[in-house]
């Protein structure tokens, strides 16, 4: 069960940290509609993370879902590093979101046939939401890329900057192999082909070019992160850590 717990935390943390990042847009969106859109997407991701952390709390009964979210340190978070990257400008956020949404959709499609009923059910529910998010981020990427010269240049830069974090989507470590053997987990390597197809098509529609694969960041499966995560957690966990028994 310890393996399933760890596997669940990886998926949960990826949603949780991206949700937290997106929530920073709340009240700062470029238009009212986008402000609401980003907040809604953030809420969906928080909800998915919550479902997964509730499941984690069922496996490890000494902890609650909130304990997992608020009482772990940086080295015990396993979210993909792309999720903790800063929002930057709206184009930066949309590029990051598009790359993640495409991955989420493919990942959850596979996870929905997991032998673990809880993971399968959450995945199945998440697919519907993620497909909607993907449509939104994809449309924005095309609109910005195929927009003005400046917007095209900006999202091209956004893509170039974040590209080195996309390698983690497809990594397989020992735990991934174990989960795959038990028909619980996903073969991340196999997601790459379809991810490439979708991404290449959209980048071409957006008239931006795909960066060359060079050095790829890695480490989140072992709790290694960029320096940005620590700062995020300090803010996210401040209240429950300062007032341990606070109720709301």
């Amino acid at each position, binding site marked *: 069960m310890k393996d399933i717990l760890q596997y669940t935390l990886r998926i949960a943390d990826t949603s949780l940290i991206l949700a937290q990042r997106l929530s920073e847009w709340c009240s700062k969106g470029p238009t009212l509609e986008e402000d609401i859109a980003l907040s809604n997407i953030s*809420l969906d991701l928080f909800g998915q993370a919550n479902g997964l952390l509730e499941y984690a709390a069922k496996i490890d009964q000494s902890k609650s879902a909130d304990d997992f979210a608020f009482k772990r340190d940086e080295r015990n978070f396993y979210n993909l590093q792309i999720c903790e990257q800063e929002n930057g400008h709206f184009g930066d956020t949309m590029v990051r979101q598009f790359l993640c949404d495409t991955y989420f959709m493919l990942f959850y499609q596979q996870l929905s046939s997991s032998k673990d009923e809880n993971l399968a059910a959450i995945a199945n529910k998440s697919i519907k*939401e993620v497909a909607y998010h993907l449509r939104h981020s994809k449309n924005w990427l095309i609109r910005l890329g195929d927009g003005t010269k400046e917007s095209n240049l900006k999202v091209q830069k956004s893509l170039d900057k974040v590209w080195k974090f996309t390698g983690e989507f497809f990594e397989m470590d020992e735990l991934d192999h174990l989960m795959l053997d038990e028909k619980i987990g996903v073969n991340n390597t196999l997601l790459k082909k379809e991810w490439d197809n979708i991404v290449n098509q959209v980048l071409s529609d957006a008239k931006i070019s795909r960066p060359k694969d060079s050095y790829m960041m890695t480490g989140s499966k072992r709790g290694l992160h960029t320096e940005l995560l620590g700062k995020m957690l300090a803010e996210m966990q401040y209240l429950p850590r300062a007032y341990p028994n606070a109720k709301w």
Partner: protein
Amino acid sequence: MQSGSIKTIWELLNNVPDPEIPVISVVELGVIRDVRLINNEFIISVTPTYSGCPAVKTFQDDIHTELITNKITNFKIEVVYKPAWTTDWMNASTKAKLKKYGISPPEKIAQCPQCNSKSIELISEFGATACKALYKCSDCLEPFEHFKCI
């Protein structure tokens, strides 16, 4: 104290309004998946509309209050994710209530709830809540919300 039958529980649940669209009940919304009686305890299975729907917690509290007020204490609310909630669980009379309330019900093609025009314009795919998108009618010019089909 324990009392009531499964039928009574369903009737009481049907009094609990959706926190965000009070003209329909949580039963009509389709989020109550099952009520069973196990060892003298009613197990009420609820499912979220969207994973992040903030109303999920609210309607659980509202169900709790409704049952306690009616002197039913032997119950437990559990959250289930499977099968995932779908707007297909809303029947025609529920959809008619939504329309009367000014929300375009979950049909493949949105329609102005005021003048029934199909000449409409999408303003935002994300409305005030995750379950709705924002449109504007090109005929009567009224903005309106459309309950998304999922």
